[in-house]
């Protein structure tokens, strides 16, 4: 299956891209995706950062199972306002 990953803020800068599609095996979780992405984009590993995870614009946990076509975002600590 394929998922769409969007990067924002520091992760967009670190990845050098705003959006990628990533191939995953069935049953893969958000955590599996994150580990896979770090192999392609080693700079995504920002020391000390605590990320949040969103699938299709909803907050989820790392063990959330992904489906084909999902939009996944790894969110750095937010700082709006």
């Amino acid at each position, binding site marked *: 299956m394929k998922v769409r990953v969007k990067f924002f803020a520091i992760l967009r800068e670190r990845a050098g891209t705003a959006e990628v599609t990533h191939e995953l095996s069935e049953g893969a979780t958000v955590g599996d995706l994150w580990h896979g992405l770090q192999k392609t984009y080693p700079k995504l590993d920002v020391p000390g950062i605590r990320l949040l995870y969103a699938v299709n614009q909803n907050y989820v946990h790392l063990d959330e199972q992904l489906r084909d076509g999902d939009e996944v975002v790894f969110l750095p*600590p937010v700082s709006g306002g």
Partner: protein
Amino acid sequence: MFRVQNFAIDLDELVRYVTDAEAGAIATFIGTTRNNNEGRQVIALDYEAYPEMAEKELKRIGAEAAQKWPICRMAIIHRLGPVQIGEASVVIAVSSAHREAAFAASRFAIEEIKKTVPIWKKEVFDGGEVWIGTQTGQRFDPS
């Protein structure tokens, strides 16, 4: 009215939106960009969002505020892109029959925005730039 936009926020637009014949109060909150942070002189600020989710979260905040307090109407606009020092980065307007609900709901909204809405602020200062929050860590736990 809950949205993000790349241009200056017009306070009157929000006030007009929340104006209601049943309301006896309108509270507005304006978050503005400061020229200093943690001892650094700030030259410019740049906001980035995950826009679809940011608007969804702003709506969620509005719905939650309406459950907690008897408010009439609420509007929130957050600005994106470069924002000059002293300009509004976020504006909240709330109307209610009595002032307590409008004050409480606007306070709640700005605190929630800072915790859960996927918007990021980059601070440009003399000698560098930094994404705010990256060092201080996440304050929000979605569970």
